[in-house]
């Protein structure tokens, strides 16, 4: 029963998001972004609703969604830590930093800590190549990082 209600809620919320974007040209990505913003991931029920309303097949919507690394099919941890793996950060010890973070958190890329607090994602460039190594915690940017600074970031978030 609770599940059913949740499913109806998702459909309702998704419909409201589609209402906002329907008039746009190529509305699928903006809709997916908003759905993920609302639920923290793209639920299957939302996907079905989008397919129905945009007159697309479920495979088309799934195909588009799964192409882009940003979209999740499951909720992330309460916080998402994106650590840059690209060359400019590598030149400033980014690779070692990434290894240290994985060891300290006890998780690998794309995983979430057992307490559900932090999900670790790789990112290929945040445009902070002049203050490398860099990372993003929930949309907040951090540059000139070292292991201590990253651990402090993790500690600061609840």
């Amino acid at each position: 029963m609770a599940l059913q209600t949740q499913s109806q809620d998702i459909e309702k919320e998704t419909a409201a998001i589609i209402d906002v974007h329907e008039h746009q040209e190529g509305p699928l990505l903006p809709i997916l972004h908003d759905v993920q913003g609302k639920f923290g991931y793209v639920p299957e029920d939302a996907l079905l609703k989008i397919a129905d309303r945009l007159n697309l097949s479920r495979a088309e919507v799934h195909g588009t969604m799964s192409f882009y690394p940003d979209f999740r099919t499951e909720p992330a941890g309460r916080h998402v830590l994106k650590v840059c793996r690209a060359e400019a950060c590598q030149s400033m010890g980014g690779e070692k930093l990434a290894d240290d973070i994985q060891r300290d958190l006890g998780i690998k890329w794309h995983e979430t800590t057992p307490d559900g607090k932090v999900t670790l994602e790789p990112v290929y460039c945040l445009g902070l190549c002049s203050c490398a190594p860099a990372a993003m915690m929930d949309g907040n940017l951090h540059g000139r990082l070292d292991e201590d600074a990253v651990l402090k970031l993790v500690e600061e978030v609840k």
Partner: protein
Amino acid sequence: MGAVLYVSCDAAALAVGADRVAETLVDELRARDVEATIVRNGSRGMHWLEPLVEIETEQGRIAYGPVKPSDVAGLLDAGLLDGGDHPLCHGLTEEIPYLKRQTRLTFSRCGITDPLSLEHYEMHHGFLGLKRVLEMTPAEIVQDVTDSGLRGRGGAGFPTGIKWNTVLKAQGAQKYIVCNADEGDSGTFSDRMIMEGDPFVLIEGMTIAGIAVGATKGYIYSRSEYPHAVAIMQDAIKIARKAGILGTSVMGSDHAFDMEVREGAGAYVCGEETSLLNSLEGKRGIVRAKPPLPAIEGLFGCPTVVNNVMSLASVPIIMDRGARFYRDYGVGYSHGTIPIQLTGNIKNSGLFETAFGLTLNELIYDIGGGTLSGRPVKAVQVGGPLGAYFPPSLFDTIFDYEAFIERNGMIGHAGIVVFDDTVDMLKQARFAMEFCAIESCGKCTPCRIGSVRGVEVLDRIAEGDQPEQQVELLTDLCDTMKMGSLCALGGFAPYPVMSSLTHFPQDFHVKPLTDAAE
């Protein structure tokens, strides 16, 4: 009105604590009962000095940096508000050699104005290009852009005027201007800096493009890794719309033009123009085969100009000062200025806009100050993850499209990543292939499969498993990827690999070669 202070709102400044510095300034000023305005400007591009605090004085702005929140009280005690001396003081901002040596055309306002102040924008020559364009015919505008010698700043270096002319002549009830702001190359951030520091120049450039080719709708496709840039662009568009710059009548003329910002979703390949168009249409970001060119059949099958942020942001000054003015900068076929991004392991990191023609030596040592670690430079990668690695013996190469091509490199989006002597070039080559494998859209086999095989071959070289044969295999594989890939992802991934192999062979067959030598 009291003192006027400037603290940047650029993402690079925010990443190193500019917000906290600004907040501390507000608190301290309040505690001291001093009236002052803090303007959140774009960045001057001297990122090693961020967070930079500037104070307006009669002589000009005086710079302090890098400022930590804990420095603020001391700075105020030292007379910051009167430009007082302090160990963090660099004197007049404009006199700092790094800035003084630049030729700022595209970035003329960045770091000076409040990004979202139309008043600031107009006070600093804003909209003069657009106003001139409103008196011209589309063909004249396109001719001016062609005459300026402006080439695509995204990396390909294709003449912008020729692209515009194709769209101008193409038939279509609807045409589009698409701004490629999917700046995914490591070592680059100039697009981000313009969007965050001077968004109206991009709006002006796109509007001019629209009027020139007869397009009424524009899209800025930005990456989702740039939330600040997206937010500022969106605000700027709203402001421009309200002021009648965008809309059904651009600045009261008969031309209509409007635009919106669209966000990508983490796919590097969407920086490729056809993949970007698919993504804008709401599809998988798969590369399209060319022809048809996007200029003929682009977004939703309509004639479309796809230009990089830097190309479009350079248009207003060209239209304001004239094609000749812009063309006179540069060397050879590389006209105008190029915002070079000095990044990675480099002391004076940041953005340096200059006419084409400086050598890598000048850029890395004279301007960049060498490595931040203080160790010798071993290699630089120019042009992003698909750009070649150059050893110091090639640092006499001048910054010019053709000079780099001649040496099997590319300037790409003009990012330079500096590595010191601790870098392992075999690892860098492997990363290039790994990155290509992760980011491949999957459409063409050389890229999709080749990159995976490339990683395997490089791993075998690292293990010392028949390195000579593996190197031969790798060379052949790179050749196939270069010739057979549909787009630059698979087609250029061999450049970092082959340049590493060519210039740093010692990193490739370590064990067997030393064995043989002994």
